[in-house]
């Protein structure tokens, strides 16, 4: 079972306590943007086989949204961090890079 540590309340939360929220760090496009930009924001997802940054909510705990880095191919969790982040923290990126030398990096 997938276990993620909630960065707010510190609980090691089982998957059944959590609600998945798909890809993190999406740039939002709305009124005034082009069709391509809006389509990309609405539908195009990285969907990587490997390192993935995603949103989760501690639904049956503190109720807060947070972000996590996880490998979609092994289900390994690299770490979780605050939802108030516009990009993954540098130490987490370094940790992932160490574990996955072939990873092309965030961006």
């Amino acid at each position, binding site marked *: 079972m997938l276990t993620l540590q909630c960065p707010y309340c510190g609980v090691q939360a089982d998957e059944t306590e959590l609600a*998945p929220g798909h890809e993190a760090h999406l740039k939002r496009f709305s009124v005034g943007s082009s069709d391509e930009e809006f389509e990309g924001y609405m539908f195009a997802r990285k969907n990587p086989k490997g390192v993935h940054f995603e949103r989760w909510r501690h639904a049956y705990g503190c109720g807060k949204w947070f972000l996590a880095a996880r490998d*979609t191919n092994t289900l390994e969790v690299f770490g979780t961090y605050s939802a108030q982040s516009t990009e993954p923290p540098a130490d987490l990126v370094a940790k992932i890079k160490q574990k996955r030398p072939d990873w092309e990096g965030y961006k």
Partner: protein
Amino acid sequence: MKPAIEGALRMKRYSVFAIAREALRHHSGWEKAWASPVPKASYDAIIIGAGGHGLATAYYLGKNHGITNVAVIEKGWLGGGNTGRNTTIIRSNYLQDPSAAIYEKARSLYETMSQDLNYNVMFSPRGLVMLAQTHSEVRGYLRTAHANALQGVETQYIGPEKVKELMPIININGPRYPVLGGLWQKRGGTARHDAVAWGYARACSAMGMDIIQQCEVTGVRSDAGRVVGVETTKGFIGTKKLGMVVAGHSGQLAQMAGFRLPIEAVALQALVSEPIKPCMDVVVMANTVHGYLSQSDKGEMVIGGGTDGFNNYTQRGSFHHIEETLRALVETFPMISRLKMLRQWGGIVDMTGDRSPIISKTPLGNCFVNCGWGTGGFKAIPGSGWAMAELMAKGEPGPLAEAFTMDRFKEGRFIDESVAAGVAH
């Protein structure tokens, strides 16, 4: 039609006489059903993915369009992906017109598939009931029944008494999941999933097509915006046309070809029980609780569950989804409560934003994609192959595929099956 008939002459037909002949010579004369050739330098068309959809595409390229210089490339073994991992349900009771058209085409092709391929796919049109267990489902299925009547798909909305008559083992008075009615498709049913892949593979091989297993595509080579071939673990193979039919891994292939697909990969699970005596001769889908139930010819209860909510390529799903499905099915079918479950497995399904497939041209010239079948690909295999073959042969989508193009997401022209049809996803 012509190449298929020529091919059939080269292929030894299966028949009652063949069984008698082989019985007399101790079964020493059965030939391999398909060849395992070394790849040629180039082909008229390459299809990536030897699952049901890929093999069906190759078959109809040969049968309907006379293109037989074709290779089907598979990184594992044929039919080893989602074709071998589904719950084998066949139905066409969809809400939207384009979906009903392609799924009904597929269902009707399943009816004659065994004769067409000279391979017993064990199609069993035993009937299928989608249970309405909430009032919104009742309204949804009444709407679907009316839509199906207009589309020429034979379905019927039935009350709880008729449901009970069709499946005496059901409990229609459950406290949490009462049965309020059902959408009945008499001509729906099941087929032997492996045999569908094997039958198509045999027919393709007989037409002279190459099915190349254990050959992974590692890159797509293009020149001036047009595809020229694929890099594989068995070297470069040239092609005039390329079809990508790889379900869960479509995103990775698209990346190699330099474009993105509006798809996310998640795990969908299924499981089977120990075999029991025949107790239910229809297929049941309980969409409120994400559970499907049917009895296989071996007597096992085949159960389909729900998808995980997160991206996953591991071919195994979360245990709590199985628990949720079984909890609800046990209330609806109390007699299965003591059954032991024998096997559980997961497949990687490719989900689109509107839960409808993509059969489309791509930004790369002469490269076509067939994906996004999500949780419901098996039932669509022949229709999908038919439509994809037409697209690849003519370069433009035919009537079955024209609504399923990739640009529908930009244009807002969705084929919304996730909400409207109440289909479990």
